[in-house]
């Protein structure tokens, strides 16, 4: 059994929608979601060795998404995924008039202002288990579009990994290559039929509007989990081997 704890925002809905099917295909997988829209999980606090909802509103959200839990207990999870924070670009982003150094500074600032660093720091104060992170998916675009982005996705991931995640021994996961348009956007079909987080828990999930470009659908969630899982298994195997050898 691999028990993965997912801390997320509304973007975690894509993973949640895919989770049942994914777990059916991977009987060893057990995913528990602790998610709240937007910056809702900012109200998580480390209290007595657990990461606990500090407001009744967040506690209710977490119980809803996790299936009854309002605190993250390190003893109950083998690995962690912080999903959907940071990396959100802006439709006005245009690197043409900007220096490469400034583009990097803006990208890093946006991630630093997100909840990702807070959750990484909190988790690292609780556990040395493998922690992974994934930024907000790139906005969707048609294959014919010329999406603008301060950095290409690969460069963005490498930069954020080096400057923000590595100090916490957190591995930043890229988007699946098959989901990308020119390294700057997500293929439009993955945004079609995405659903809000609260609806992802319902049997009949109402979709986002047709103009939604930032939230992804269950198909994206499946693609993402399929790409992520082998790396997680490898990391856990290495960790187990290290523990066996006492290193």
């Amino acid at each position, binding site marked *: 059994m691999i028990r993965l704890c997912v801390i997320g925002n509304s973007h975690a809905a894509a993973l949640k929608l895919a989770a049942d099917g994914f777990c059916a295909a991977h009987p060893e997988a057990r995913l528990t979601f602790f998610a709240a829209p937007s910056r809702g999980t900012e109200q998580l606090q480390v209290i007595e060795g657990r990461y606990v909802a500090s407001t009744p509103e967040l506690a209710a959200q977490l119980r809803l998404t996790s299936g009854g839990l309002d605190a993250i207990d390190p003893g109950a999870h083998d690995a962690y995924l912080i999903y959907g924070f940071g990396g959100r670009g*802006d439709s006005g982003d*245009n690197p043409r008039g900007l220096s*490469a*150094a400034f583009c990097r500074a803006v990208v890093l600032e946006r991630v630093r202002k997100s909840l990702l660093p807070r959750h990484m720091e909190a988790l690292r104060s609780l556990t040395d288990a493998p922690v992974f992170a994934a930024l907000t998916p790139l906005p969707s675009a048609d294959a014919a579009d010329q999406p603008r982005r301060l950095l290409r996705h690969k460069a963005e991931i490498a930069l954020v990994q080096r400057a923000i995640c590595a100090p916490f021994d957190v591995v930043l996961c890229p988007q699946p290559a098959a989901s990308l348009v020119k390294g700057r956007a997500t293929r439009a079909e993955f945004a079609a039929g995405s659903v809000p987080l609260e609806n992802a828990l319902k049997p009949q999930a109402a979709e986002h509007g047709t103009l939604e470009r930032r939230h992804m659908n269950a198909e994206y969630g499946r693609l993402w989990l399929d790409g992520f899982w082998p790396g997680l298994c490898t990391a856990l195997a290495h960790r187990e081997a290290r523990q066996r050898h006492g290193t």
Partner: protein
Amino acid sequence: MPQHQDMSPTHPYADLPLRAYWRSAVGTDDPVRMTGLWQPKFLITPEHPVATYGSCFAQHIGRALRRRGYDWLVTEKPPRRVSGEVARRHGYRLFSARTGNIYTPTLLLQWLRWAFGEATPPDDAWPEGTLLRDPFRPRIEPEGFESLAEVKRLRRVTLRALSRSVRKARVFVFTLGLTERWIDLVSGQEYPLCPGTAAGRFDPERHVFDPLDYPQALEAMQQALELMHAANPRLRFVLTVSPVPLAATASGAHVLCATSGSKAILRAVAGTLAQTRADTDYFPSYEMITSPVFGGRFFASDCRQVTDQGVGFVMDRFFGDMATQFGLSPAAERAPLSSDPADPEEPVCEEQLLAAFGPGA
């Protein structure tokens, strides 16, 4: 025959407004409550796009305009959702375009000639490790540029933004800061800072100290205004003189005396242009900070940096005197919005780097 009673004043000083007499205008009240220091020539409304450039002190003006709901024209912007700190560190939203500080009238003229195609900037960049600095705005990229192509590309971006700001603005505010300047004998170009201080390497065979005298400063400023007027005949100009003393002088004089000399030249240039040009006004921020009347209260403990209180006083007078002159209510300062993209508190002052080279630094 009735006796003729002559009601005309006996001499020109007999019937002046109260502000004309030291005793009534200055000597009787708390100087901070003094008003009428400025009689603006023309109204600036919140609908008028205002471009701002100049030395460090000019950075306060744009922000003050924005806080009062005026249309501070920024033609070179960072992406949205970038904090003030990051934007400021990279030279955004300090002035209307990312020129960095423009200290002298000749440096302004140089930038304008480049922007309007009257001259071409040299293909010049100063190496610093593996990176490059733009000699004409050496601190604009704190980490440096990655290539000469990037230096040139982004300089073109700024020149287009400068040109656009001149063409789109109704008012161009320029703060004159220095007369001391450094020239490259090879290119003939002026640097904002002496090579070797903020960046670059000083070459005594190539880099010469060439301070402006009054005729040179006036001529350059006149040419700069003419160039902008030709591009935008509706444009009005407001000149100010920075009250911030020189951080250091290469003149051989004591820095205090060099400051007086430099500011006197700039003040005279601004005054002359305001007197001789209908489209140009002088706003006396210099006097508002440096006059003995205020007892130095607007300077920080180093007697150089202007305090926030001083900046506030100057900008209150700017809007207050504007309202008085044109019978309006003074524009109220609004609280900074959390969504304000950039609201730096401290000006970015490259010239201050010179102080770092002095003894005891």
